[in-house]
Structure formats: structure tokens, C-alpha cells
């Protein structure tokens, strides 16, 4: 009997937890899925280009040729005023862009998330001071902030590592308040949930509660924020380079710097030095933004239609009703034989009401 019950308890499992990307794609529809796919393809192209830059680029990013050469077989996208090969600069530039984005996002998550978690969970004076500081950072114009930080970190411009790190740090400073705010507000909501209280009753300490229970429940908005920030990071990096606070052209290729140098050529009809780096920026920003927006739609439960929330409840109910019906039949069996004979004679309608319960078994 009990073995039967176990078998009847239909396990309502969700399909495949194995590949998160696939599960994500499966939960999207129509336009949303198209957005996600286009975004993913664009970003994938840039990642591949960045990874294999040494193989793909015809020349090094700092190799010099004569300036302002138009497009030719030797220089598919021409050369810049300074004499760099445009195609090579774009390919190497993808590498710089992705390095800076990754570093900036990792840094800002590593700092912003724990700060927000502690501030929200502990509350009190600590929370008030942190919120004040973050609000002040938030209120500062972000580009101005990035310029100030890059001057402080690297004296304005410098070599490979220092250049990338200073760009990443200046972007990080802008993003920390965003992660801080999102995580802190979510923490304040989550910390009064009964499951956090349950952890307290169990005897768990504050660190365990914060990182074991609260963090996993406030982290769902971080991927969305990270992708949306990634596109902002590229723009900030390009702006820094454009304004001359970015990375030296001899240290690494950087699209913003190239755009800046292309300005002088525009009036004399040299368009290829500006258009192609610009297109690269537009393409990667579009790709990352598309992923971010569709992630937002998919991961935000408020924007998602609910689907069969009560399946497990139903399964349990069916099981119990069937057990009841079974028990009835066992107890009724001897009586039923007698009743059958009676029923044949009488005009009482046959007992239909048992049918639905039986059908479901």
C-alpha cells in the first residue's frame, strides 16, 4: 500500500537543469528570444575575435605604416592618420574592451555586493553612512568621476596593465553604488522573510545568514545589472579614450582613442578611420544591451506569466483522493456484490460519481 502511494506521487520535475543557457533560451518566446539570440551572437563574435586576436589580426596594433592609406588588399580597412592598420586596431581593440569590462564588472561586484549585503542586513548607523557615501558617488557625473579616478590611478595615461587597470577601476567606482543599492534594498526585503528568521532560530550566525541565505535570494538581479553595466562600461572606456584619458596607442588598441584621432581626417574625406571603430562600439554595446534586456524580461518574475503553480499540490491531492477511493472499494467490495443485484432490479441510477476518481488512476 505504502509502496503504491510513493509510486503515485507523480514527481513534477522541471526539465533539465544541466545547461543554464539552454534552459534560459527555452523559457523565452518570439521577439524576446530573437533579442536574446542576436545579442548572444554579437557578444560571442567579439569574444572569439578578442581571444584569437593574434591569429586574426593582419598586423600588430602598434605597427606603423604610412598614414591615411585608403582600403586596399594590404590594408582591408585602410590606415589611420598615425599610420596604424584600422582592421588590426579594431581586432586588438576588442581584446582591450573585453578585458576592461570583465575587470570592471568583477571588481564592482566583489566590492558592491558584500557592502550592500552588510549594509542592508546590519542596518543602523553603518547603513546610513554607507548609503550617504554611495549616494554622493551616484550623484557625481559618471564621466567626470571616471576622469578623476583615472588621473588619480595612473596620472592620466600609461602603459598596458596600468592603463587597463586604471580604466577598469574608474569604471568600477561608478558601478559600485549601483550594485550596492540593488543588493541593499533586496537584502532589507529578504531579511524579514520567515526563512531568514528560521535560520536565526536554528542558531546560524550573521555571516552564515548573510552569505548562505540572503545572498542567494538577492543575487537574481545581478546578472541583469552586470550586462547592462557592461555596455555602459564600453561607452565609458571609449569616452575616456576619446577625451585622451585612456590607454596609450602603443600599449594597447583602444577604439575611443582611434575615434579621437579620426576627427582630423573627417573634413578631408578620410571616413574609414572613424566609421569602423564606431561601428565596433555600436555592435558590442547593442549585443550586450540586448542580452541584458531579455535577461531582465526572463528573470524578473513580475514580467513572467505564471504557469501551473499548483501542480505539486494537485498531485498530492489526487494521491490522497485515490487512496480514499481505493479504501472505499476495498471496504465496499463485499457489499457491492449484493448491491449489484439490488441495483439491477431497482430504478436507481448507477453510481456514476465514482468514475472520475477511477479514471485518473
Amino acid at each position: 500500500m505504502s509502496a503504491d502511494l510513493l509510486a503515485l506521487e507523480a514527481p513534477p520535475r522541471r526539465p533539465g537543469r544541466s545547461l543554464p543557457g539552454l534552459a534560459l533560451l527555452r523559457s523565452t518566446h518570439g521577439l524576446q528570444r530573437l533579442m536574446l539570440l542576436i545579442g548572444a551572437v554579437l557578444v560571442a563574435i567579439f569574444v572569439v575575435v578578442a581571444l584569437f586576436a593574434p591569429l586574426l589580426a593582419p598586423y600588430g596594433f602598434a605597427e606603423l605604416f604610412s598614414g591615411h592609406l585608403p582600403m586596399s588588399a594590404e590594408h582591408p580597412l585602410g590606415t589611420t592618420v598615425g599610420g596604424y592598420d584600422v582592421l588590426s586596431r579594431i581586432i586588438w581593440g576588442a581584446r582591450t574592451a573585453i578585458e576592461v569590462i570583465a575587470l570592471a564588472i568583477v571588481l564592482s561586484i566583489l566590492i558592491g555586493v558584500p557592502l550592500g549585503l552588510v549594509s542592508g542586513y546590519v542596518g543602523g548607523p553603518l547603513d546610513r553612512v554607507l548609503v550617504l557615501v554611495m549616494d554622493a558617488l551616484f550623484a557625481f557625473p559618471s564621466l567626470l568621476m571616471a576622469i578623476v579616478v583615472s588621473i588619480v590611478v595612473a596620472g592620466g595615461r600609461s602603459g598596458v596593465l596600468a592603463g587597463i587597470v586604471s580604466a577598469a577601476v574608474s569604471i568600477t567606482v561608478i558601478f559600485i553604488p549601483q550594485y550596492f543599492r540593488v543588493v541593499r534594498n533586496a537584502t532589507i526585503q529578504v531579511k524579514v522573510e520567515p526563512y531568514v528568521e528560521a535560520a536565526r532560530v536554528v542558531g546560524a550566525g550573521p555571516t552564515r545568514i548573510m552569505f548562505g541565505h540572503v545572498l542567494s535570494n538577492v543575487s537574481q538581479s545581478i546578472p541583469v545589472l552586470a550586462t547592462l553595466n557592461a555596455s555602459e562600461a564600453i561607452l565609458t572606456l571609449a569616452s575616456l579614450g576619446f577625451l585622451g584619458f585612456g590607454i596609450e596607442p602603443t600599449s594597447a588598441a583602444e577604439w575611443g582613442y582611434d575615434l579621437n584621432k579620426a576627427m582630423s581626417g573627417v573634413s578631408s574625406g578620410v571616413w574609414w578611420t572613424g566609421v569602423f571603430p564606431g561601428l565596433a562600439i555600436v555592435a558590442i554595446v547593442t549585443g550586450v544591451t540586448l542580452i541584458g534586456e531579455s535577461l531582465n524580461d526572463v528573470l524578473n518574475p513580475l514580467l513572467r506569466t505564471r504557469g501551473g503553480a499548483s501542480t505539486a499540490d494537485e498531485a498530492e491531492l489526487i494521491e490522497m483522493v485515490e487512496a480514499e477511493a481505493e479504501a472505499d472499494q476495498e471496504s465496499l467490495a463485499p457489499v457491492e456484490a449484493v448491491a449489484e443485484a439490488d441495483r439491477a432490479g431497482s430504478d436507481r441510477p448507477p453510481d456514476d460519481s465514482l468514475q472520475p476518481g477511477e479514471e485518473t488512476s
Partner: protein
Amino acid sequence: MTATSPAVAPKILLRVENLSVSFRTDGAPVQAVKAISYDVAPGETLAIVGESGSGKTVGCRAMVSLLPDSASVRGGAWLDDQELIGLKGEAIRRVRGDRIAMIFQEPSTALDPVRTVGWQIGQALRVHHPKMTWPQARARAVELMELVGIPDPAIRVQSYPHQLSGGQKQRVMIAMAISCDPEIIIADEPTTALDVTTQAQILDLLHDLRDRLGTAIILITHNMGVVADLADRVAVMYRGEIVEQAEARQLFGQPQHPYTRHLLSSVPHLGQPRPASMNTAAPTVTDRPVVEIEDLSIDFPGRLGQGPVHAVSQVSLTVQEHEILALVGESGSGKTTLARCVVGLVKPTRGQVRVLGADIVKAGGRQLRQLRQRIGFVFQDPAASLNPRMTVAACVAEPMRVHEVGTPAERRARVEELLDAVELPGDFARRYPHELSGGQRQRVSLARALVLRPQFLVADEPTSALDVSVQARVLDVFVRLQHEMGFACLFVTHDLAVVDMLADRIAVMRQGRLVELGDDRSVLRHPAQDYTRDLIAAVPVPDPVEQAEKRALRRALRAEAASLGAGRTD
């Protein structure tokens, strides 16, 4: 007994035929209601009962076009000769309120908080009687409020919803519903959000209105006691279908469908012997106290300009080893605050709480952690008290990990053992809480509370978020485990019928004070205090015959009380 022994010929007021409702979702469409048919005669009360999610509310809302856009409705519903399904705009607005009125479950959210109740009733009137002036509407609102039994209606008409009690708000909702003399009132769980004594008064009112106004009522509920009290006929819904329809007495006497039988056998019945499944050998209660509460008071800071709120005042009680002490009271009685104080979640203002020999108020740091290792806590809502991001196994093993008990292998074994003890299959360990049903989740919650073999367990309304049919099984498991493991338990609940099934002793609380304390039998069968007596009398029993007697008795008691001039208003 009721006005429904009709002098009129059995006429049909509302006819529903093959009504189906389905919802579009991201996946396949969900069929919420599958071809239901029923009739309602004038002045009749039809109860629609069923599990949450069985489609009982959706089916009724379809008739007044109150479903979201994702719903598609097929089939027909006729009020007299008017087809209701497919009515739009002005046509359906003329039906709503005027011919079919609705009463909602939660009166505090169904009323607009920034308008006076008089304005809201007046508005309902003026929508359907455009010629009515505001003074007329207001005068009628006062009349209606008097009709539904709100004291001082001429003054209360100016009140805002937050100034009224829950029962009074529901009375206002009823006043709005009857304002245009509707032919049918759809009452969707009208008493679920209310306390038992308030529930009894609202049921009295509905009885009274039906007798005086002859309005037909469609009563949607899951409370079989309420059904027994009010319904003439009952339709049982199960998974979107009506599986059984019968006169109330017949349905309670000879239920036909297995679901109905299961439902009726699961309903705890105040005053009946405990079910056989709970009669396992209980450990003997000893004189060793596990919890000693002495002169405990807990105050919360009041709003600006107001004094503190006394949530608990001067309560003294003890819980003995191996004993289940039930703490009973209505909302606001301080029972949950007391329970939370016992486990150290709330600091008391005055008094002493000794748990397992240690003072939990003064205990700090290490001592408190050690104490918590020996105390279990089961929360009210299992959906909220299990971390949604942790698997069942991780949830159950959490106390062991926190207190660094056992090796990973031992923990796994213990989790398996406990899942088995709460009658869940072992493969549930890998699932997440949202994949489980409410009852299964609460059993996981119980397993977590018991994983460290506590000597003392606090259960805060562990079954009130569950459907009755599921509640029975959770209680079964609970009692069996208590008998096997012998932990002492403070069982907080508002449901006297549940208390009757499992408690050794009962403590009744009211407005923060301990009103009565005694063993199960004496408190429930021979209550010493008036309040306890009121409380017991207010619980509707799931048996129409018995409930009719009870109602008559209550009426007599009330008449007696009124003649003594001690009539209590709510």
C-alpha cells in the same frame, strides 16, 4: 427553520451550463474550470466547496466578467433569461452590483482606504440609481449600515476603513453588496480572513439577510463548518469539475465521490473523539518543566503620540516534558509574540522565560546557540519559511551544518531518515521547495525542526496556511512523531478543532492575557470562562444537524445575555 422552505414554486434564478474557463500561459493553456453546470433558485444558498486552485472562484468570477484578459470563457450562464457570458461594457456593469453582488475574502483590501465607508456605499448606490442625490445616498447608507448591524451608523458612516475592525469592514462590504437589492450575492470566502467569533457574527448576519431579503447566495468556501451552517445545497468542485451536488444534509450524511469523502473525513470536528490514527501510545507527561514563563510582559512601541502596545501582559505558564500545550487565541491575542519570545526572537519587557533550565532572555552568544540546538521551530507558512534557493536536503540538514553536527555522510543519512519519518519519498531530497505541495513543504519544515532531536518544539500555526484535506496528514505525522520522539511542544493555533485532536493542555489567551489554562477535556468540554465558552460556541461544526442545534443554542445564549444587558458589540 430558514426562509427557503419556499412558498413559491421551485423557479430557477441562475442557470449555469457547461461553463469552462481556460487561461493562456507561457506553456499549454490551463483549464481552470471544466464544463460545470448548476442552478440556483431564488432565495437559495448554494455552497461551492473545493481545494484552493479547484476553480471555484474562477467559475463564479466568469459570470460577472471579472477575469483577466488571459482567460477565455466558454459555455453559458443565464440570470433569468439574460445571457451573462460575453456581456461587455455597459451591459455587464448594469448586472454587476445591481443584480449580482460580490463579497470578497479580505475586507481590508477590498475597501478604498482614502474614502469614508459612507462615500463608498453611496457610490455603489448612485452608480445604479443616477437620480439619487448625495444626501439621499448617505441616508440610505446609514440605513444599510444599521441593517448589517454596525453600531452608531450615523457616526460610523464618516469613518475610514482603518478605523473599523475586520468584522465591521466585512459588514460594510455586505452593506455595499445588498445596497441595490441584488438577486444573487456571490460571497467568496467571506469569513476566511476573520476570527471565529467574528466569523460567527458574519454568518449570523448572512443568515438573517437571507431570511429577511430573500437573496440567493453563492457561497464559495473551503470551510465545511461554514457550509454546514449556511448552505441549503452544496456543489463539490475537484480539479475544475463539479463532482457532486446534493442537499447539504445528504452530502454530509452520505457523501458519494471519493474526494468529498476524503474532504469530510479530514475536517477536524470539535467535540468528537480523536481519530484512530492519532491514538498511538503517547509518552507520559512528567512534572519536569521544559519551559517556565513567569509574569511575562511584552510591549511594542506604539505609534507617535500613542502609548506602547501591550502584546503580552503578565502571563505565567509552564510546559512539561513530553507535553503538547496548545496556545489558543484570536488574532491580536499575543499568542505568536509569546511563542517567538520563548525561542528568543522577541525580547520581553518584564518577566522571566526559562527554557530547558536556561534563562533565554539573558542568554547570549554561545549559550543561546547551544540552547537553540535543543529547540525546534515550525513556522506558519511553509512556502515562506524554507529558503527557495536551497534543496530540501540542504534545508533539512541546515541545523546540523550550523551546529557542526556529524559528517556529511551522517547528515545525509539523518536527512533520509527524517524524510522517511515525515512520509516523504527519499528522492524529494534533491528537489526545491517550490516543486513541493503546501503539505509536503510543511512536512519538510517539520523535518528540519526535528533534525537535531530537540527536547522542545514551538509550532506557530503550522497548518493554518494549508487546505483541510492536507492538514489532516500533516497533523497525523506531527502527532506520531511527538509520540515517538517525546519532545515537549508549544502549539500555537486559532483552530479549536485542531487543538481538540492533539493537545494535552490548553492555554487560552485574549488581548495579551492568559484567560484560562487547563487540560484538554476540561477547557473544551467544561470551560470556566465566558470568553472560552464564546470561542467554543462560535466554531461551526461540519455537520448541518449538529450545527443547527448549536446555532439555536447560541441564539438562546445571546438572547439571555441581551436580557441581562450585557450585549457585546464587536
